[in-house]
């Protein structure tokens, strides 16, 4: 190796824990240009880059990093946007340690290149400079594609299709596009302005987004298929799961989806400036160990909780949340009740008062490959709490699916698709993201959206023009 190796990665400037735990501003502050160039210079520019292999959307990582190193930040951003519309989002919320950075050669001996931080840096730089890193679209093909849901999979699918020259219309049920990026992920992790900016880029490519439009209610699926040449469903993970234990109906028990939607989409943290309220507990218990649980518990702290507690049935090693989020939660003073499982919630005058848990022993290996938690008899204990947030996952939302005659679903009620193409058993109908896989990550949903976009493009090219019937037009 000819040049000097920098073994440690450049630290990310952050708001100090004691300050940030009480505000909704972003935790990570982002690299300066000097930091970014220094970090970029660590990249070995591998011939067969493991990082690209590890990325679900195959961002040309060494190329963009080399632009950063040279100080061509806009070019770096354009390089990423060749395949990824939302570098500002992905740089912030991807589990890089399990994807691109896991494949980094430097990481075998030292710390991997901070790819996510660099991605975020160039996205933010581009945004500050007015978004010149946007790429252009092919000439129009005249084909029309409907996308149901404006979350990560729908947005990335729309982006690729629009660049291929297709006319794309997105139907969104809520009043604001972005799906989980706006209702689920908190401001302190992903500022809404970043999402809005990246969606603006999509609109500039000619994509139409119709909000307040519930497909299956406002517009039938048959109408969509008659009006459009193909359709992609990316409606997300769906309805929240509850534990099914006594006391779950008490006031002060939330699903994580409701709690986060109130705070994020409806801005309840700024109540009464915004109309939607949320209960601000002084002792908040969050059940679950995923990213959603971490978001909920850290949100509760920022709403003023004296104590915010994670109740998780396995140990710290099995926590499915992104490492950085767990680390941040620990720094901010979140208490972890590990190897614990709630058995009932006790109330007073209809409001939550305590949650009773049982200790779990981890033994054997279950079908998910993780250690199987088994309750320890007689180990019951209670945790005082005035808010309980259930963050144990979701189930398929039947709202749209039950309207599509003949659609093949899997055992869990999600849509069955061809893994290579995202095509369902219905011709011209594709699907991807959590509505296919169940709860997963933003970037895997984006990967599914891109895969489906390629397949839709192929499908449209191989097919003789279909005649259009009566329209659904506003």
């Amino acid at each position: 190796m000819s040049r000097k190796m920098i073994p440690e990665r450049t630290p990310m400037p952050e708001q100090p824990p004691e300050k940030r735990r009480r505000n909704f501003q972003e935790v990570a502050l982002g690299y300066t240009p000097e930091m970014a160039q220094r970090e970029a210079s660590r990249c070995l520019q591998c011939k067969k880059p493991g990082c690209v292999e590890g990325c679900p959307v195959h961002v040309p990582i060494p190329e963009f990093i080399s632009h950063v190193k040279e100080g061509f930040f806009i070019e770096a951003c354009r390089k990423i946007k060749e395949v990824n519309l939302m570098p500002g989002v992905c740089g912030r919320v991807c589990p890089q340690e399990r994807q691109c950075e896991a494949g980094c050669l430097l990481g075998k001996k030292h710390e991997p290149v901070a790819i996510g931080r660099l991605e975020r840096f160039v996205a933010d730089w581009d945004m500050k400079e007015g978004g010149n890193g946007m790429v252009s679209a092919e000439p129009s093909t005249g084909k029309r594609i409907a996308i149901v849901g404006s979350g990560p999979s729908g947005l990335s699918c729309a982006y690729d299709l629009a660049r291929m020259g297709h006319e794309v219309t997105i139907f969104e049920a809520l009043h604001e596009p972005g799906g989980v990026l706006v209702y689920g992920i908190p401001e302190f992790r992903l500022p809404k302005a970043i999402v809005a900016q990246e969606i603006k880029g999509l609109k500039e490519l000619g994509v139409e987004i119709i909000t307040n439009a519930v497909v299956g209610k406002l517009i039938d699926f048959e109408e969509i298929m008659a009006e459009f040449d193909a359709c992609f469903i990316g409606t997300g993970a769906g309805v929240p799961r509850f534990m099914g234990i006594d006391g779950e109906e008490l006031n002060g028990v939330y699903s994580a989806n409701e709690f986060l939607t109130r705070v994020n989409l409806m801005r309840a943290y700024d109540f009464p400036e915004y109309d939607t309220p949320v209960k601000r507990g002084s002792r908040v218990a969050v059940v679950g160990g995923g990213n959603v649980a971490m978001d909920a518990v850290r949100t509760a702290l920022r709403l003023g909780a004296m104590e915010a507690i994670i109740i998780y049935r396995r140990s710290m090693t099995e926590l499915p949340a992104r490492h950085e989020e767990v680390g941040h939660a620990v720094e901010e003073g979140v208490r972890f009740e590990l190897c614990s499982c709630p058995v009932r919630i006790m109330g007073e005058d209809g409001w939550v008062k305590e949650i009773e848990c049982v200790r779990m022993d981890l033994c054997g290996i279950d079908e998910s490959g993780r250690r199987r938690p088994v309750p320890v008899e007689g180990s019951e204990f209670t945790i005082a709490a005035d808010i309980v947030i259930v963050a144990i996952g979701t189930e398929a939302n039947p709202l749209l699916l039950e309207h599509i005659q003949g659609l093949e679903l899997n055992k869990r009620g999600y849509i069955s698709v061809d893994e290579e193409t995202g095509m369902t058993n219905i011709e011209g109908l594709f699907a991807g993201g959590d509505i296919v896989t169940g709860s997963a990550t933003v970037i895997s949903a984006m990967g599914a959206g891109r895969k489906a976009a390629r397949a839709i493009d192929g499908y449209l090219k191989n097919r003789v023009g279909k005649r259009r019937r009566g329209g659904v037009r506003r």
Partner: protein
Amino acid sequence: MPEILQKRILRRPDVFYYRVAAPLISRKAQPGQFVIIRLHEHGERIPLSLADICPEDGTISLVVMAVGKTTTEMSLLKEGDSIRDLCGPLGKPTPVRYYGRVVLVGGGFGIAPLYPIGRAMKEKGNDVITIQGARSSDLIIYRMEMMSVSDRLIITTDDGSEGLKGRVTDALRILLDEEGADLVMAVGPAVMMKAVSGLTRSYGVKTVVSLNPIMVDGTGMCGGCRVLVDGKTRFVCVDGPEFDGHRVDWDTLMLRQKTYREEERLSFEEWKKRHPHVMVEG
């Protein structure tokens, strides 16, 4: 944005009728369904039942009582103003078919959604009897509309200023004793629907109620509107809003409805401080 084409005062000073341009919604909406509205960038999402559906002229109608901040802000909108966000139709439609004698029981402004339901029931050849209650005669709304879809309209008032002195359940009891019913549908405050369901249970008459819990997204995503029906968790927005009144856990519903009472009061007080001269009318 959907425009308000017509606004009327149904009851001074606080109950208003709106006819809103919503061609796509009116094309698909069925009796028993609802919409969610949001008035401005800082607004909350609130569910409102459909008080009429007119696919012919592409409109839907809403009836709103100004009780808190959002409904008061709504009461200040005028003809020509727009509703920022209007999402629907949501929920499952009323299962309209021939039952025989259908008794519609409405309390307060809950009577409004019973109008399109009654009309649909009438079209299926049902004998439709409406029982409508209020504290006094001048608080009865939607009288002409309900008359037009009912074979008989029975009014009850607490003070006896019109019709039978008493509650809707008093009139319903007499009706069930004398004539019986094949289906009772109750829409109104939870406490009224609970009372109606309690009464009809002893007569063994199937009773459908339309629940009105706190709601956020309206598509099944948040679970905020969950209720216990037969001991099972159901989501009003996608599984309802109509349920068998005999199977609903009313006490839990009513308790959950009060979750944000304090915040709602605070929000309204703050608003009134900022709008000291607003007259809630017209």
